[in-house]
């Protein structure tokens, strides 16, 4: 990535609360016009990082630049960013119009112009005619739109969103996801979005930074994160993953020869992993990339045999747990219910066989 890509540049940022390290040496670049998500479990430092961008927290060390400007000395009220708070922070003593126009005071616009801007943005967030409502007369979804409008009307360089969909019920959340994406495309503002919901992050983002324990584990596009996670932590956090312990036998021409539990020796592409001979590592495969057979499959493709431990019926899919001799953990297998007729018929304890395409299996970095 070249430096011109870095609209927001986060350089070796650390944050300590007393002796507790909330952010550990984080460096990353966020591009202009990007929908960028910070994803992680609660307490991973994602909100702290967002609040640093807003200026509510200062970094213990390191530097944050927005559009080339160092931010460490800039107070929140002078930063070119606006935020949508987790609880929306709608001012209870003002109506919707005054809430949205709150930040316009400093611009010293004529009253009619201000009014016009508010009406315009109310249209954009699909709340036309709501200007005179008070905050307590709005539903959760409407409050969220007001918070969005209030931030967007100032045309910030960056919009920060702190789990804005967390308080909404599932249906409304999905609807708002679509609208957020539409809004972001239409205004062309860089969005930095904090969430603990991996599905939400995958749906919305151009790129995602997966965080844990104050560190950034991986920054990548949603599909790369899902298909090619670089570590076990990332693989575990996004979706479900089967892991098999492995040892590197040799490395040559970008390929690794691995000794894998239950599978024996196999050649896999090394990818970007820094593994060398003798290292212990893991190979991984997603549950939906495994095919479950009731009978021994023909041909000479590698097939693992095991016993079916448990079946979970999930409507459009079924989930199977298969115990394979020589493996510590049971295999998780997911299948669309069009290929296997119903989950109920699968008696536990019966023998099954597992197959997959060669490229479904990949090697993770050092443990």
């Amino acid at each position, binding site marked *: 990535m070249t430096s011109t890509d870095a609209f927001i540049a986060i350089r070796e940022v650390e944050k300590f609360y007393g002796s507790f390290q909330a952010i550990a040496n984080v460096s990353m670049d966020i591009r202009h016009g990007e929908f960028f998500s910070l994803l992680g479990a609660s307490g991973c430092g994602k909100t702290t990082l967002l609040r640093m961008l807003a200026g509510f927290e200062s970094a213990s060390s390191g530097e944050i630049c927005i559009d080339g400007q160092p931010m460490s000395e800039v107070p929140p009220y002078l930063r070119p960013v*606006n935020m949508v708070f987790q609880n929306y*922070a709608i*001012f209870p003593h003002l109506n919707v119009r005054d809430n949205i126009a*709150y930040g316009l005071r400093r611009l010293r616009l004529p009253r009619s112009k201000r009014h016009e801007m508010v009406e315009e943005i109310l249209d954009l967030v699909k709340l036309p005619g709501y200007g005179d409502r008070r905050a307590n*007369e709005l539903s959760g*979804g*409407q409050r969220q739109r007001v918070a969005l409008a209030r931030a967007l009307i100032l045309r910030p360089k960056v919009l920060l969103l702190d789990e804005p969909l967390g308080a*909404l019920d599932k249906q409304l959340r999905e609807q708002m996801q679509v609208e957020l994406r539409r809004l972001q495309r239409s205004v062309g503002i860089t969005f930095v979005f904090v969430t603990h919901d991996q599905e939400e992050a995958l749906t919305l983002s151009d790129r995602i930074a997966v965080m844990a324990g104050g560190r950034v584990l991986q920054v990548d596009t949603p599909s790369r994160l899902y298909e090619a996670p670089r570590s076990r932590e990332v693989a575990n956090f996004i979706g479900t993953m089967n892991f098999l312990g492995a040892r590197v036998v040799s490395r040559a021409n970008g390929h690794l020869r691995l000794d894998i539990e239950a599978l024996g020796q196999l050649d896999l592409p090394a990818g970007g992993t820094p593994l060398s001979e003798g290292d212990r590592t893991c190979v991984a495969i997603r549950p939906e990339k495994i095919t479950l057979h009731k009978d021994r499959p023909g041909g000479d493709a590698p097939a693992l045999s095991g016993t079916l431990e448990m079946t979970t019926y999930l409507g459009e899919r079924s989930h199977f747990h298969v115990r394979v001799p020589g493996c510590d953990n049971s295999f998780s297998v997911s299948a669309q219910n069009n290929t296997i007729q119903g989950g109920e018929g699968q008696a536990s304890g019966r023998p099954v066989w597992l197959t997959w395409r060669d490229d479904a299996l990949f090697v993770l970095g050092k443990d």
Partner: protein
Amino acid sequence: MSDVSYIRRPNRLLQIYACIFLIVLYVPVLFIPLFSFNDSIYVRFPLQGFTTNWYADLMRRDPLWAALMNSLRVGLSVAVISTFLGVLAARAITRYRLAGQNALVAFIMLPLVIPGIIFGVALLVLMSRMGVPLSLYTVALGHLIVCLPFAVATLLPRFEGFDRSMEEASADLGENPWWTFWRVTFPIVYPGVVASFLLTFTISFDEFIMAFFLSSTDATLPMYIWSQLRFPREFPSVLALSSIILLVSFALVFLALRIGRLGSVRKPGAGSNGAD
């Protein structure tokens, strides 16, 4: 009966008790306005006839007006200062994690339970030791000690309910701390401030014990009333004056409670089952 829920079922015994309670509480007080319109200098039944002479008589008493002005001056200053200090205290208590916070709150509230006479004597001793002459200033100081706990007690719930992200949102939208205070913080806590102001004013205005110990020749209104009680002929006028004070005090406290409740009855959010 079955259409009334268990908790709302009327309880006859409780209603009678409530009535007796209110009667015992307020009937003695109601005698004061009653006799203030009685055409006799003796407070006794049967009533002699209706008159407003005692009220007219009040208008001609210059010392009374002087005392009233004194009380207003002390009351207003005490209300302003104790509410201001109360705002600072309530904000500090709710905003920062202070060491020994519970002890601090208890310490601020302590004057509520210490008898006024003890505080009065203590302050009197202190003032005379320090050579401070008694005046309306010393009265105000005494009242400040009495009023501060009330101010904090009124303001604390307001500030406790204050969501800090409101101020952050204001800063985020480009307002500096000064404007944030005036555009967000103050409007949200303002009902509590008004309630505290009215309450402390009323307390100071009616206060007797502190004024008794700490005032010199400038009497406050309660001091004036006390001085008039020695003359039986003045008693009906005192009743008339007391009636007026009662009325104004009631009005102020009612107003304070009413404003204090403003805003806090509003529900914080109307749920998220979207109407959109």
